[in-house]
């Protein structure tokens, strides 16, 4: 029963991350990504998935797909229907599933964030509908697999489990909202374990959209650089297995980190521009800290939303300065988008995974920029290095004013 909830609410229940999987332009899997993010490697390259010859910008953090993907229990005809976004999701989910040692799990809710689901299938559907209006070949399959809930069902089918599906589409905050909501489900007693994360594949419509807004950098994405000129788009997926501490410890699951705080707020200023002082971003960070029972002084690193656009980064810098309340000088900040671009609905999940990598390895993910924006009262991480990390904070802000913040903590 979803309502009234049958479980016993315990907001103090620690929520642990017991599995994680990731694929980005940096590579497939935890190790390849950890190595790349630790070095601050930049993975933006020419777009090959669709024609960009008439676009203003012609690069993105496109993934080189592996030769084979894990398909679990999917039948061959179902495998043939998989679109790029679902493939990315399957790859990340498989790694998380294996790491969390979930074989035999039959029931588990799925909470995912995405902005465009199977958009490439929608594009193909439209082109055929226009070019060959009477041709129905493969169109029904495209309709079904365009839907993001179908992609979540593919995951359940591939791994042989059942559970409610929740797709959160809060633009670029979707992944963080999904993880935060998954943690809420555990703390409210509705379940003991959730498969959560975010995914998005590059698509012509979305790439053209950001290009039309002139939001893409014609040079290089440099978050918080004084001369930044836009973002780079990317694609990828990250999946986390969240679990109540009691269940995780009880079954001897590996523990990667603790999800200790989540906050969400809405910026009503403008559909695509943040309120200049970052009011909603500040509120989101404050709510996450309150949820975690932490003060800004206890946060050892901020993985910023940091898109590299002039307006976003200045609003986020203002929010971080205000949130730290004069103590920002001790909190290092960087943005993963400098390396792998903006992953939209996957961004929050992938950046949460990067935070877990940093917590586990006790290092700071650097980014390559030239001149720091003087609006930043905090140090920007510009070189690889070790650090003592107990609590890290990850921001995700999206179109429509969706703001979300996660706090992840090291476990002993």
């Amino acid at each position, binding site marked *: 029963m979803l*309502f009234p909830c049958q479980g016993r609410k315990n907001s103090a229940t620690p929520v642990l991350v017991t599995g994680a999987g990731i694929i980005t332009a940096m590579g497939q899997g935890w190790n390849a990504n950890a190595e790349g993010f630790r070095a601050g490697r930049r993975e933006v390259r020419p777009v090959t998935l669709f024609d960009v010859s008439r676009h203003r910008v012609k690069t993105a953090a496109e993934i080189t797909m592996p030769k084979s993907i894990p398909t679990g229990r999917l039948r061959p005809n179902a495998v043939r229907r998989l679109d790029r976004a679902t493939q990315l999701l399957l790859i990340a989910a498989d790694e998380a599933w294996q790491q969390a040692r979930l074989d035999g799990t039959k029931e588990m809710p799925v909470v995912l964030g995405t*902005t465009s689901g199977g958009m490439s299938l929608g594009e193909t559907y439209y082109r055929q509908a226009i070019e060959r209006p009477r041709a129905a070949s493969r169109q029904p399959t495209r309709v079904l697999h365009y839907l993001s809930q179908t992609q979540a069902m593919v995951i359940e*089918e591939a791994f042989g489990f*059942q559970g409610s599906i*929740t*797709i959160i*589409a*809060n633009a670029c905050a979707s992944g963080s909202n999904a993880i935060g909501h998954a943690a809420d489900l555990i703390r409210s007693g509705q379940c003991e374990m959730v498969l959560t994360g975010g995914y998005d594949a590059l698509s012509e419509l979305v790439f*053209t959209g950001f290009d039309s807004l002139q939001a893409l950098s014609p040079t290089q994405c440099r978050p918080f650089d004084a001369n930044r000129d836009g973002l780079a788009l990317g694609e990828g997926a990250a999946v986390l297995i969240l679990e109540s501490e009691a269940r995780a410890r009880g079954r001897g699951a590996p523990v990667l980190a603790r999800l200790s705080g989540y906050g969400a707020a809405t910026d009503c200023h403008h559909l695509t521009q943040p309120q200049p002082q970052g009011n909603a971003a500040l509120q989101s960070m404050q709510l996450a800290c309150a949820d975690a029972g932490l003060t800004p002084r206890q946060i050892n690193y901020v993985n910023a939303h940091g898109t590299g656009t002039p307006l976003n980064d200045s609003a986020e810098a203002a929010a971080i300065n205000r949130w730290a309340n004069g103590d920002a000088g001790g909190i290092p900040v960087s943005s993963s988008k400098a390396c792998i671009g903006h992953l939209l609905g996957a961004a929050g999940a992938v950046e949460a995974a990067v935070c877990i990598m940093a917590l586990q390895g006790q290092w700071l993910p650097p980014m390559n920029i030239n001149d720091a924006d003087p609006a930043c009262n905090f140090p920007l991480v510009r070189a690889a290095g070790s650090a003592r990390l107990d609590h890290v904070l990850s921001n995700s802000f999206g179109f429509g004013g969706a703001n979300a913040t996660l706090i992840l903590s090291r476990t002993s």
Partner: protein
Amino acid sequence: MKRVFIHGIGAVSPAGWDVPSLRRALDCDSPIATAPLERPGWKVPLPVRRVPQPIPKLPFLAHARLRRTSPISLYAAAAGMEALHNGCYKRTEGHRLGVIFCITAGCVQYSRRFYDEALRNPATASPLLFPETVFNAPGSHLGALLESASVNYTLVGDPGAYLQALALGAGWLSEGKADSCLVVGAEEIDWLMADAYRHFSRRVVCGEGAGALYLSNTPPAEGAGVELLAITTPRLYLNGMSRLQAIRQVRGELPCAGADALLCDSAAGWPVRDRAELDAWSDWNGARLSPKRVLGEGLMAAGAWQCVAAVDRLREGRHRTALVSIAGSHQQAIGACFSTGDNG
């Protein structure tokens, strides 16, 4: 978990821009006339059920954020504002109004237009259209219209996701994330969407509009009001679970209802798809309401219309309990139970 009451309801549908017009259309129990929608490349248009022009024009639709939006945002705003208005919502300092916006197809008109421009020449594709293609644009406009800085989610799913959204809203109220919550489901028609549905049945007629429920933990001041009693576990059509089995499990999980109860189902007059739901409820002897037969296949809007219609009949005193059964076309079955507050 705290009790949850329905303080307000709102609807935009092919019957008109408010709940009374929805009520009249459902009471007539006769399908609303279809209108032709041009489908490029075809001589014969697609039959659809569109929302009529609002008369008189609703004042809040002139809000700056709604000037360039697609119809789905206008429908969501109108249904949401009606629910808040008849729920006597007044914006006060510190009140946290949570907003949940739900869609299946979403902002398909602007998406189709923008992609068409992108294919013709990406260098001149309109930057005004693109932001309105994003799934959460209508939810964002709604938040801006209401000046609500609180938590605001957009959920994507089949029509059953509307009931999941109600459960989410109830959870926010229970956990103290929001003081009250507005849950809106909406869709808009485009030839692309009607074309897509035609691949599954030539008999289906698409509809458009929105429905909204305004939730709070406090009982309404006037009378006992309507209470949300239960929302079942969603049952997915997956791993061997048939539609019929899923709907039967949902029915088994719903509270027993008396002889005077209402069943508001999701039958759309599409025999192949309706069969499982009709079979699962074949021995139901009480009153029955099927909004989609009258208004069309409104996807997420239809899920919301079902709830609005059920709550409206309870508020009118025509029943004491209402069950809502939503059997989505390919994802899941799910159900809910509403009751007048004096029903225990």
